[in-house]
């Protein structure tokens, strides 16, 4: 809808549009028979930046060309704010909601918008979801520009491109696709932008929305994009040839494409000695399988395939199970469930109730349950090992995926013992192999095997050996000169 000519009419329409919301402020200044009005939403902008200025500026306004002269005046005297003109109500309201002040001049059907944003976000703080011992500590915030800045200040290459899309009929959130032009193949960016432009939804509150809408195969529980709050990790990914998507008002960005081994990595891996990193990654890989398979194997062995258990252990296990009233599978499920409840409660509870939870979890559920003969000690050990193993991962999504597949393994083992368990494992591998994100198979670099990319998957080679970027991500491979070492020695 085009703007009207008179100030009063404009204000009236605006008020009608948002139902006279309490935070809309409209003022009209009259001086020397010249009349201008300004409007802002006091909840998102601060007026003190501009009202003083307007009072003075109105005097110098040219009566013949009021709009142009005033626009130039503002343009030339206010340097630290964005100044734009707009002609429709929708555009004007978008700017008002973004923290702009709109100036309307009597007789013009255009408005000038000046940025008078109020700071509504916290500053850059330490990351809380991905804490590390060494490396940069800053994290993304809810401020979109600040997030872009946190990346830009790390990569000063002009090839770092930001492409912005506005998504959300009501929220009109900015979604920025960041990539490095000469590393990322163009078709991938195009594909993502196309997908993003197709999205038609009324609101995008967090990156979670975008992620869900981008993922086509909703049936897979395994995450195909990485979420992170760490700008340093986002930058590393960008430089490896991945694409980062940032969403306004969300401190989490998503990185894609992701492969399974990415979740065995931690942001810290780049800042520590390669040997130690390899060790941790192998540990995480072991933990992955431990968390996934242990309860299933336990049930299969305890209820079907006793002959595999060594003699001494068999007797010890049999004695421990003596007097437990439930079948092994129920016993395990009961405690898997108990742990999940504890975890769920722990994540969302404020810290003051944490100690109470520890007492309930550790003492009552663990110790007392064994003493009461509801559960055998070995099951507690199995569940504890499983649960601890799953917590080594940084990404919540992979933990959830493990959790769900673990249940499937438990079911298979409960009904068919080791045979069912192995069958389920085959299904598991088949499922993983069928996943892909932006044309990258999920099990890369193991399947399809890419030996050169293996150097930074489970085992990280030293930086001198990692002269190339991963082949499955980019064609622009050179990260370092091939002769780097020769030239230096």
């Amino acid at each position, binding site marked *: 809808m085009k703007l009207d000519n008179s100030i009063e009419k404009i204000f009236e329409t605006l008020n009608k549009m948002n139902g006279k919301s309490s935070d809309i402020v409209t003022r009209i200044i009259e001086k020397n028979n010249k009349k201008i009005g300004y409007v802002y939403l006091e909840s998102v902008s601060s007026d003190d930046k501009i009202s003083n200025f307007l009072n003075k500026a109105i005097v110098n306004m040219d009566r013949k060309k009021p709009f142009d002269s005033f626009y130039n005046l503002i343009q030339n005297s206010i340097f630290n704010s964005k100044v734009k003109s707009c002609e429709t109500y929708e555009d004007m309201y978008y700017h008002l909601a973004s923290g702009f002040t709109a100036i309307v001049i009597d007789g013009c059907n255009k408005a000038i918008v000046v940025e008078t944003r109020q700071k509504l976000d916290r500053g850059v703080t330490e990351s809380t979801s991905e804490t590390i011992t060494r490396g940069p500590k800053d994290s993304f915030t809810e401020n979109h520009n600040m997030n872009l800045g946190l990346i830009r200040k790390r990569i000063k290459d002009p090839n770092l491109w930001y492409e912005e899309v506005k998504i959300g009929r009501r929220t009109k959130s900015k979604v920025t696709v960041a990539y490095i032009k000469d590393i990322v193949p163009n078709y991938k960016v195009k594909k993502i932008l196309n997908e993003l432009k197709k999205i038609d939804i009324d609101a995008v509150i967090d990156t979670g929305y975008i992620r869900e809408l981008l993922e086509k195969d909703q*049936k897979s529980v395994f995450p195909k994009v990485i979420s992170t709050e760490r700008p340093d990790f986002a930058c590393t990914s960008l430089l490896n040839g991945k694409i980062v998507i940032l969403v306004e008002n969300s401190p989490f960005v998503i990185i894609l494409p992701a492969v399974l081994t990415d979740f065995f990595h931690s942001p810290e891996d780049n800042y520590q000695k390669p040997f130690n990193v390899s060790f941790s990654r192998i540990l995480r890989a072991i933990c992955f399988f431990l968390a996934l398979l242990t309860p299933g194997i336990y049930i299969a062995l*305890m*209820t*079907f395939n*006793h*002959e595999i*258990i*060594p*003699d*001494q252990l*068999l*007797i*010890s*296990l*049999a*004695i*421990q*199970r*003596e*007097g*437990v009233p439930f*079948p*092994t599978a129920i016993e395990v499920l009961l405690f898997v469930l108990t742990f999940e409840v504890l975890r769920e409660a722990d994540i969302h509870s404020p810290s003051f109730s944490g100690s109470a939870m520890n007492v309930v979890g550790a003492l009552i559920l663990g110790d007392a349950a064994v*003493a009461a*003969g509801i559960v055998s*000690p070995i099951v507690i050990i199995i569940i504890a090992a499983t649960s601890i193993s799953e917590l080594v991962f940084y990404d919540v999504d992979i933990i959830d995926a493990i959790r769900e597949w673990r249940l499937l393994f438990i*079911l*298979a083992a*409960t*009904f*068919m*013992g080791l045979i*069912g368990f192995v069958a389920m494992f085959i299904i598991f591998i088949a499922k993983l192999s069928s996943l892909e994100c932006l044309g990258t198979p999920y099990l890369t670099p193991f399947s399809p095997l890419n030996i050169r990319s293996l150097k930074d998957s489970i085992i990280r080679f030293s930086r001198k050996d990692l002269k190339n970027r991963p082949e499955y991500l980019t064609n622009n491979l050179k990260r370092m000169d091939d002769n780097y070492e020769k030239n230096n020695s």
Partner: protein
Amino acid sequence: MKKIILSLILLLTLTGCWNYNELNEFSIVSGVSIDKSGDEYEMSVLISNSPKSNSSESNSSESQVVVYSGKGESIFSALKQIGLISPSELYFGSFSILVISEEVAKDGINNAIDFFVRYPNTRKNFYVVLSKNSKAKDTLKIMTPLSSFPSQQITDNVKTTTELQGIIASTNFNDLLSTILSNGTELSINCIEIIGDVKEGSSKENIESSEPKTYTKLGNLGIFKGDKLIDWANRDESLGINIINGATKEMFLDIEYKEGYVVIDSTSFSSNVSIELKNDQPVVNIELSGEARIIEVKGDIDLENSKVIEEIQKKSNKKIKKRVEQAIELAIKNKTDVFGFGQMFYQKYPKYFKSVKDKWNDNLDEIEIKIKSDLMLKNKVSSKNSLEEIND
């Protein structure tokens, strides 16, 4: 996807938990013994996950054992008798020792072996020992402080002493089976003896005492002809048999020298038996080799003198040779080829062996046996001469 899920659910329900068994619904058998009482077999099983041991106060992983026995005309009917006593199903998947009593062995062990071959729920790698001078059942009862239950004690004992002493050769069921099924090899199995009183040994005091009054001890080889036990070898003969069979890797010998003696210890002993036919006459070459060191010296022996060392070496080789000869004499006396020479001829000269097969055991003395012992004495001792002498 829906079809897959549907078929999975169908699969799961169709299996109906086939083969499902909770572990604590079993009585886990960890040792079995077979005795003879009158005309009947008496089978005893040692059950090691006795429920009464699971009191919340004591260490729950420690077990108390129960021995159940049953009698029957066949071994299976004896087993079924045990089933009437035992509160839960017997689990034979992990038992580690089978004790066969002397009487049963003298009557023939084929019955027992046949049972274990056919009985589907057993693992075939348990050890087999004979019980000498006592009921086989009793050996399962002797509690010892160092092992959590008796069968464990015997199994560990068999396993470790095989490696450390020449006279014990562990026989597991698979070996035993292949020996019985082979052409021209006879069995030799170690025995186990109870030292002390059985009643005391099966009580709890025996565990609590620091010097158990009753214990089990591994002993010499019993030699078989066919499936029947016919004789016991003494210590020297046992050693000889094991040397020829290649079961001896480590051994010691005491050699009288002048007024004192020297003990030599070999940790890398090996034997090589080869056969040939010379003018249709069987010849067996036994070559023994290895290294030994002096481990104990008594008397006035000058170890720095290389001639003395040489002499000791000669004497020890002679002694080894003698042990082997003794073993062969025993075999000839009992007319049983415990060394498996027949098997070797069968493999190399099948036609020849076929012609002599029936009388092989009877004509053992016709085989020409050449023994060559080549033990090297390495003079690596911390003190060259005996301490007595140094003090002078």
